[in-house]
């Protein structure tokens, strides 16, 4: 067990991935000497060379497109998209190529490719630096999507993602890069897509991922003081989602609250709610509920705290949820 920040844990995980397989490459803007704007790749170019840790010309479509070509050649490229809002120029290469080439080639091409996406807000940044684009990718069959929330998960999930033969959109909650936590360097916590119950509870099932796991846990603590016992599930896998774990919890609690930063409409939260009301229809004692960002472009960051679900807003929504009793 070692204490480290999530940024450092990712760095160490990438280092192990680079060590374990010469076909692992890193590709992205400013990931070399600078070590990435979040320093996640700090020191890796120095140690593994410019041929393996590659500073990319500024073109996201090309970053993903060449990674697809490298995957066809048997390489496993870990792409760093500098910020969430800059992934869209690569959208076509992601959804029409990376997501479909395994199928198109009847399994001949293996898309070993990880797209690291520092996502979500909370760092007081300017526009395009705080987005939550995960729903676009979750909607897209052929991709896998995960979100880490702790240093230990970050360390292990990035290695699992690199080893995975499908293209993985790897979402990193950038506001948690500097949070420290224990990392177990010996044993992985669980499978890449497994949900984890971060806090068991009886009254309400709270599902969150990425940045919102911490908010959910804080809300659970506050709620406990009021005598409400929340079960907090860290979803981790967004495609696939470990809905068995969620459903099992909801069958016990009868209530579901999903927390996400993304706008609510046609979101990951919509899916969880829709799926759970199908699976747990007779167990739900109140409508399954989302606490989300709003249906507006991510706002100027001076008011982002009101856009992102806060502990208070979660508790406020919880009150409304508890008023139902069917």
């Amino acid at each position: 067990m070692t204490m480290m920040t999530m940024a450092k844990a990712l760095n160490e995980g990438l280092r192990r991935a680079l060590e374990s397989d010469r076909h692992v490459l890193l590709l992205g803007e400013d990931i070399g000497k600078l070590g990435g704007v979040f320093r996640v790749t700090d020191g890796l170019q120095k140690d593994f060379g410019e041929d393996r840790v590659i500073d990319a010309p500024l073109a996201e479509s090309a970053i993903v497109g060449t990674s697809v070509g490298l995957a066809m050649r048997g390489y496993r490229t870990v792409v760093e998209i500098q910020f969430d809002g800059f992934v869209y120029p690569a959208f076509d290469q992601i959804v029409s190529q990376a997501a479909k080439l395994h199928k198109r080639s009847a399994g001949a091409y293996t898309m070993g490719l990880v797209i690291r996406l520092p996502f979500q807000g909370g760092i007081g940044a300017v526009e395009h630096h705080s987005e939550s684009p995960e729903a676009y990718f979750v909607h897209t069959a052929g991709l896998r999507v995960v979100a880490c929330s702790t240093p230990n998960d970050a360390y292990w999930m990035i290695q699992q993602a690199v080893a995975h033969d499908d293209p993985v959109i790897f979402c990193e909650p950038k506001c948690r890069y500097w949070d420290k936590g224990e990392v177990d360097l010996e044993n992985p916590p669980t499978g890449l897509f497994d949900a984890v119950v971060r806090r068991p509870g009886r009254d309400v099932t709270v599902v969150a991922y990425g940045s919102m796991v911490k908010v959910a846990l804080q809300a659970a603590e506050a709620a406990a003081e009021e005598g409400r016992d929340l079960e907090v599930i860290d979803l981790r896998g967004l495609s696939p989602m470990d809905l068995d774990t969620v459903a099992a919890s909801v069958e016990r609690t009868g209530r579901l609250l999903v927390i996400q930063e993304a706008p609510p409409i046609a979101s990951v939260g919509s899916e969880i709610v829709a799926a759970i009301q199908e699976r747990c229809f007779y167990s739900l004692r109140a409508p399954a509920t989302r606490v989300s960002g709003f249906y507006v472009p991510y706002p100027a960051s001076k008011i982002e705290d009101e856009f992102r679900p806060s502990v208070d807003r979660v508790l406020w929504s919880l009150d409304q949820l508890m008023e139902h009793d069917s």
Partner: protein
Amino acid sequence: MGGEELIQLLTPEGERRQHDDYESTLTRDEILGFYRDMVIVRRLCNEATSLQRQGQLALWAPLQGQEAAQIGAGRALGPQDFAFPSYREHGVAWTRGVPPADMARIFRATVTGGWDPRQYRYSLPTVVLGDQTLHAVGYAMGIQRDGADEAVMVFFGDGASSQGDVLESFVWAASFQAPVVFVLQNNQWAISEPTSLQTRIPLYHRADGFGFPGVRVDGNDVLAMYEVTRRALDRARAGEGPTLIEAFTYRMGAHTTSDDPTRYRVEADVEVWRHRDPVERVKALLARSHRVRSSRFAEIAEEADALALALREDVLAMGPPPATDMFDDVYAEPHPWVEEGRRTLSAFLAEVAP
């Protein structure tokens, strides 16, 4: 036609022509081989077009007029090289050994691919214009990292040349000096749009602005296509970086079988290009300078007919895949949502439509 800069080694009349930088050293048999290739792919293409007319293919993209561009470039590839097509490169596919039936599969709409790219070192048709150019550069970067003596060739059209991905692929190929040869088949049309809409100057000039050489070749001259692409592949393998080759040619037929070119171009223009036919000029050369007899031409035509017939039989025999095929190979490892779909569809089919 094509301007001063056009590299030509064989005139439309079938006369050999000198060029300062390029010389054809092909033997009679090699040229005859190219001729055979061109006759065959044209014949196969005609068969596929008629199969489409008869409702046996959903669509077909004819290559007529572009046989020399594709056979010349395709034959220049070494077995170790890897090539990326757009969707009209049946001629290149032929040179890579892809069975004609497999070329037709995607147009029969029974699959979205058609063959194993690893087997032929030849990738799958790419329908989204230009996307494959980045794959080619990435693949070439892999070659560099493997230290392999290989090169990549990638095909795209005059229309596709306007796509951001193609232009980014030029940036990357130049920056990384990737061993890639860009073959731009300028067949003068992008469906209904003439090349003049994409550019006001010859397209091979694009390369200048990115810092690697561009050349314009008579795309209807298989000798020139072969020499120029071969030289560019050698350059690439030698670590000298990318080349852009504009094959100046003409799309003699419709864009695809869904297209109606009478809406946007006049027959007279097409007629001009009939006199530049890529197959006829080689035939003239072979007959006149290499004394190939007409019986040999007849044999080749028969061979082509036989292949066409085989293609027809193969296509007719291609049944639809089982519906649950859609769930296979979506992922390399099982995915619950895919499996859920498989279960749902299987149950539905078992209960309702058995």
